[in-house]
């Protein structure tokens, strides 16, 4: 019986050794920085395209935390991230004014689109963004919201305010999840939703693009450096390396080309060095 116990332990130890010897004992101890960013940059696949090039160019490994813009800014505020890549301009300006952030630089933009069922029961096709929101509310048509303090949710709230509507009631549903998941809920419920164009193009099933091109739908991404004022362990040199790289010519070219081969159109427009857009 004792020998059986021993053999069990031996097998366990062997399994453990086998697992430890795997190729996944990857490097992690070198220079690494923490990037807090939005789900849209990850779900669209942009980061997978950019980050290996950044590591090759600078030697910095990147630990990406893909969350809503609100949470990304909160991580920056606590000094838990070195650099942010976010798309919630009003919240960003407020955050930078607090004084713990360094430079805030324009990186790129794309746009938000209003999506809904092909039948379009609220009749929003071709309407301006605010007008479309008002019609959805008046028709009591299902609207699926991120409801998660992301940049997209912040924009949606701004559009409701512009439309003079306080959303609520059975037609207004919040998922609290990322953009990909929210798109699928909207498709399943034949509801309307607001999405960034990149995530929509990567999974367009079941939803029709009904309103686009309104200035109020501009979606602008900034990189924000953190400083040691946010926390002792923030690495300002890492933040500067990332901010300089992503606004540099090589990364800007990659951003402009991203998605062309797969979707036949540009997903993000590189904007580094251009004047700040006025929403």
């Amino acid at each position: 019986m004792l020998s059986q116990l021993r053999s069990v332990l031996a097998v366990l130890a062997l399994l453990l050794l086998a697992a430890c010897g795997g190729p996944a004992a990857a490097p992690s101890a070198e220079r690494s920085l923490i990037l807090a960013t939005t789900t849209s940059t990850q779900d669209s696949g942009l980061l997978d395209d950019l980050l290996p090039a950044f590591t090759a160019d600078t030697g910095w490994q990147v630990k990406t935390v893909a969350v809503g813009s609100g949470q990304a800014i909160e991580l920056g505020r606590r000094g838990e991230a070195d650099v942010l890549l976010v798309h919630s301009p009003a919240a960003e300006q407020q955050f930078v004014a607090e004084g713990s952030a360094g430079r805030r630089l324009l990186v790129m933009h794309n746009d938000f689109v209003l999506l809904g069922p092909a039948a379009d029961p609220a009749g929003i096709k071709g309407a301006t963004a605010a007008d479309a929101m008002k019609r959805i509310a008046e028709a009591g048509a299902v609207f699926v919201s991120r409801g998660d303090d992301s940049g997209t949710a912040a924009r949606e709230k701004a559009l409701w305010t512009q439309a003079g509507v306080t959303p609520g009631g059975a037609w207004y549903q919040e998922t609290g999840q990322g953009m990909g998941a929210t798109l699928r809920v909207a498709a399943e419920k034949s509801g309307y939703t607001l999405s960034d164009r990149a995530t929509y193009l990567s999974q367009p099933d079941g939803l029709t693009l009904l309103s686009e091109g309104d200035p109020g739908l501009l979606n602008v991404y900034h990189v924000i450096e953190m400083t040691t004022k946010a926390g002792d362990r923030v690495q300002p040199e890492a933040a500067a390396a990332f901010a300089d790289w992503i606004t540099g010519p090589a990364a800007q070219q990659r951003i402009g080309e991203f998605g062309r081969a797969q979707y036949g159109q540009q997903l993000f427009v590189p904007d580094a060095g251009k004047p700040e857009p006025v929403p």
Partner: protein
Amino acid sequence: MDVLVDGFVQAVRLLLGGDPATWAITALTLRISLTATLIAALVGVPVGAAVALTAFRGRRVVLAAANTGMGMPPVVVGLFVTVLLWRSGPLGAFGLLYTPTAMIIAQAAIATPIVVALVATAVQQVDPDFMVQMQGLGAGRLRALAALLAEARLPLLAAAMAAFGAVVSEVGAAQMVGGNLAGQTRVLTTAAVLATSRGEFALAIAFGLILLVIAFAVNLVLTLAGQHRSVPAR
């Protein structure tokens, strides 16, 4: 339905085709979950046995706490570990957040109460006179304890399997403390969640199937190890 078929085909292709990223994710999943299970066993077996065999004040409270721990949501454990490992947290100096080590810590914390509770139950099942008899036969206390654990080996293995099953399948803590970093902390569960959020359902199902296969393999090895001389008579 096509998605399920595609997922199955893709799982076979990823595994047999030797896709390096998939193999790395699978190896990392095994490494993290087995290490966490081993730590939980090293801590949980002595603690569980001690709780079962010794009388002390608050023993039932400890047992109830361990039983509660069995149902602890991984995402809550993940949140606690995250706050501890934050740069601004008490263990921030070690820079462990978003590393495999952080995931092992969180998963060991999830698995340990499971082992404690199941081991305590298993040891209590053994005839209470067993220890006395063994010592009567001249065995020392430690040797008697080893014999007792050998006697209860099947439930002990069940405890290890339950612990492994809990940690290899959980996603909340792995996502939170690991961050799902490609090539660094991406395991099968978090890879499946990411594939889902990208709308790549077949790939997500493929990861799920690979997870089932390796969980089966580990349980098969443990079961064979525990049963190899106790085949029931036909």
